[in-house]
């Protein structure tokens, strides 16, 4: 696995969060998470307009090993789910931090981001896991 992008925030349940220029957030699962889950066969993303509470399950990723819920680290309104993953779930494996993003969200507040880890802290966290 390659370097962790330095501009992202990371959660203990292996989601990443990117703060976009317009103060919206893009959220996905980390490269470590996809590596643990194995080859994806199905990804379910949320519909636009859905209101999410912090720590609520918003997506399902199903691999050859297991189906897992993905939790949002921040509350907000879903702007867009990555519908392309319905046909190309393997994008989560190949490009977890890029084309494999799961949703874009308009956060209620950015405060929750302070509780997330930066790349160095997350690297340490997965090394110790």
């Amino acid at each position, binding site marked *: 696995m390659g370097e962790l992008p330095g501009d992202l925030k990371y959660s203990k349940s292996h989601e990443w969060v990117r703060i976009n220029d317009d103060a919206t957030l893009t959220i996905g699962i980390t490269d470590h998470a996809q590596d*643990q889950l*194995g*080859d*994806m*066969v*199905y990804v379910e993303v949320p519909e636009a307009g859905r209101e999410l509470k912090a720590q609520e399950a918003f997506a399902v990723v199903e691999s*050859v*090993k*297991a*189906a*897992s819920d993905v939790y949002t680290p921040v509350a907000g309104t879903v702007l867009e789910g990555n519908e392309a993953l319905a046909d190309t*779930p*393997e994008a989560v494996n190949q490009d977890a931090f890029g084309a494999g993003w799961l949703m874009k969200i308009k956060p209620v507040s950015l405060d929750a981001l302070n509780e997330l880890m930066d790349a160095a802290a997350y690297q340490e966290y997965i090394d110790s896991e």
Partner: protein
Amino acid sequence: MLIFEHSRPGRRATAQAPFTAETADDLPAELLRDAPAALPEVSEMQAVRHYTRLSQKNFSIDTQFYPLGSCTMKYNPRACNTLAMLPGFLARHPLAPACEGQGVLACLYDLQEILKDVTGMQAVSLTPAAGAQGEFAGVAMIRAYHDARGDTARDEILVPDAAHGTNPATATMCGYKVHEIPTGPDGDVDVEALRAAVGPHTAGIMLTNPSTLGVFERRIKEIAGIVHEAGGLLYYDGANLNAILGKVRPGDMGFDVIHMNLHKTFSTPHGGGGPGAGPVGVSARLEPFLPLPVVGYDGDEYSWLTEKDRPQSIGRLSAFMGNVGVLLRAYIYARLLGREGMQRVAEFATLNANYLMKRLEAAGFDLAFPERRATHEFIVTLKRQQKEQGVSAMDFAKRLLDFNFHAPTTYFPMLVPECLLIEPTETESREELDGFVEAMAQILAEAGENPEQLHEAPHTQPVRRLDEVRAARELDLRWRES
């Protein structure tokens, strides 16, 4: 090759053909097919060879050691099958009146009594047709109980993160929200997290004990107290009773409702999609809600209890009375074992698991919970081998096939990385277990010297490494003439 590909127009298995062609002349013409059914046209010998060859390609408990954790691939005594196939059982119509079926009803009533006794529950219904339906019935009864009391604000079921995937699915199907409870580092439920999670919204908890981590939940009494105090009920996922049979009873642990997978513990046919049986047992307060029919006995005659007798029942789950043929096999198995035999099942299931666990540890494998005693199964983690040698649990599983052993369960439970969940069952000899350890040790050596040997396994099977992604995404289940 599919049997349809052997087919040639007009070829017949003459030995099997009826002597006279019978016509169904009393059926309306519009209901008769105008073209023959699209059946393969092969000779009898071709059919015999085709299916024999297929059976030889299978791994099965009759041919190989099959330590598939959480699945209990143990020996099903042939006697159970033989006796359940007695003509009186086999030819009985499910709608024959109870007075004509006192024999089979007596067997089923006895099975209810045996399951009550062995689980410590107050009442049992045999009707759920499989484990998943048993789970559904169990949680539906929890819901019916709360509803009957007007206690309708309870909308949440607690499920430990080590649970079988069916547990959250069942709770969701019964209209509940699922709240996940974490597991502590020793494999037990995090009791403090549980304490924080319960409240007036708690309908119940679904627990497996021994848990899927292959350890016994040591604080079960305390857990039962916490959930009961909050007004919730305890559901026992009796997926596997092998480790506790005749030793510990879920009823004594404080559970209110339990389902039992007879195909695991009570040795009924297993795998291949059924038919199964998933009886439910309940404490006194849930008895009115049991699914129907239940077999009753008034000291003189056996009868099917119906909605008239049990107006609060959650209802019927299937046509007729559940899978009676499967229930009979379980009944005969239980009677063959007797009370002492059941205890021996638990003793040898745990002895075999602990023996295998200690020998694998000595052979250089890492245990997920080295300080814990195994129940009927245990977990090896290959995280270290993956880091150091780049070989995965899947590589080990596939390579084991070359040594003529079915692979253990891989990647379940998800809480343990690169895991193998190993369940030898009580019906294996020590020599068989030793052979498995030798194979595992040899594969471990290969992982260091020649990891490619593992990556490319299996080498000796009819098929090599399968494309699981494609198998999951592009289902191809129907034969078409090409």
